[in-house]
């Protein structure tokens, strides 16, 4: 895999952030992991930032990778667009080791990306960010009329739903007929 190391962490290498500790406590170097999306662009992210994602946290918790091993084995998220993964990584970095506030002003503002962002955040199991995103989706229809809600959330009419259902049934029927014919051909 040809990977271009970039993203928040690699563009501006993150210094390990350490919580204030007593003078006697030895400093533990922060570990980093690497993730990439559909665009194969690799993002370097600290374990602390990745803790927001229950999915990734579960994957890395017992790996014990060295820096080299982690770099050589980036986590692939082929179902997530590169720019969406970048937004998620940025959010995780901004909220590393911090309690998340009730209203998050760092939430990505691009409405056109919201749909993909919600799906990605849901997949990566980032609970707080998911709540913020869903709140933003819900707020889109605040005070709107049913006609406006239908437009904003692209809700098909009953006629469109019925047509889509008919089409799906037709397609399923064709597929079933094709499978039966193929099975008959195999039997011969």
């Amino acid at each position, binding site marked *: 895999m040809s990977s271009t190391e970039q993203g928040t962490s690699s563009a501006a290498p993150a210094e390990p952030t350490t919580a204030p500790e007593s003078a006697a406590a030895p400093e533990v170097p922060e570990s980093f992991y690497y993730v990439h999306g559909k665009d194969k662009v690799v993002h370097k992210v600290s374990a602390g930032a990745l803790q927001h994602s229950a999915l990734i946290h579960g994957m890395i918790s017992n790996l014990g990778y060295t820096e080299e091993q982690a770099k050589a084995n980036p986590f692939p998220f082929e179902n997530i667009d590169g720019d969406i993964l970048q937004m998620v990584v940025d959010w995780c970095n901004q909220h590393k080791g911090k309690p998340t506030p009730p209203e998050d002003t760092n939430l990505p503002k691009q409405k056109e990306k919201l749909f993909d962002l919600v799906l990605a955040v849901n997949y990566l199991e980032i609970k707080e960010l998911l709540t913020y995103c869903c709140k933003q989706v*819900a707020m*889109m229809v605040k005070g709107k009329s049913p006609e406006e*809600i239908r437009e904003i959330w692209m809700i098909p009419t009953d006629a469109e739903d019925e047509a889509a259902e008919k089409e799906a049934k037709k397609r399923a029927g064709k597929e079933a007929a094709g499978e039966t014919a193929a099975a008959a051909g195999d039997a011969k």
Partner: protein
Amino acid sequence: MPISLLKFPTDLLREVFKLCDPFELYKLSKCSKRTQRFIMLGGTKNWKIYYTGGNSMIILVDCWYYNFMGTNNPEEHFETHHYGSIHLMHIECPNGNAVDLFVHLIDTFGIRFVKSFETMSDKFDNVSKVAQVFVDKNMEIVQFEIRNFDEVQDVANFMPIMKQMNITKRFSCHQKFPPNFQHQWIKYPKEIDIGESFWFTIDQLLNCTCVEIKLDKSSLNNHDLNVFLQKWKKTGEFPNLRSLKVRSENIDNQSPILEMIPPIVDVKNQRVSALIYNDFYIRMIDAVRVTKDDGTGGRLRVDVGDWPELNFLIANPADEDDNW
């Protein structure tokens, strides 16, 4: 920028709908048959609704009140107003009729709980129809109050439907009943408060599972109340009971109740105030201590004269407060 919401997986739709208020979900239900089904993902089945008659239906969600006001003026539909913790939206009133509006809302949201059902300002026919809906849909009614029925016979006619309703917390009725009225309880709520209770027999009292019982204009006499209290003294009897108040002209000073001839008071002016189940306060003064076989204490006071009345309180000592 629009987003194709219905392409979200169900768990995500649930998250979004939980963050929508009842007005938005109602409007969403009007978008298509599919959205009508989906809105219940927002937890609407657990909402609580009030029925008090008229075209105003209140739904309680997380301490906020959402008033759906039926109107036949299409120009007002979906208009919203906000007054403190109360939010109001005008909606179409199906068939211009309050009962149909109520049924429309419980069907739209799949609501299973009625916070309060009051026969306050409604016709008897409407109340009967709504009660029948509760029975047919097996809905839980937290509180039910009968009042303002015009005819005595209406109350008597209504009680067989009431008997089938699943009332869980409180039933109260301060209406007159016909002299020959009789009633059999299938299930008792936690509290009953009956203003004209001559028909409430000692057998019913002996089988009553309530926490709080208030019987006014009762026909119970000293003998009945003695039988009741003797039964209470036995271990394991009336485990739920915390308060009994009986007003009856048949309470007198002619025979004993728990071996005491009324009036039964303790002149040491003992005051007791008790919080029952963190729900309601009962206060008593000059009550006599009585004890169950298992050691549980109760307070009893019986007055005779112009206002014969028995008051009985069983409170957890930790909930008692003598300094009120």
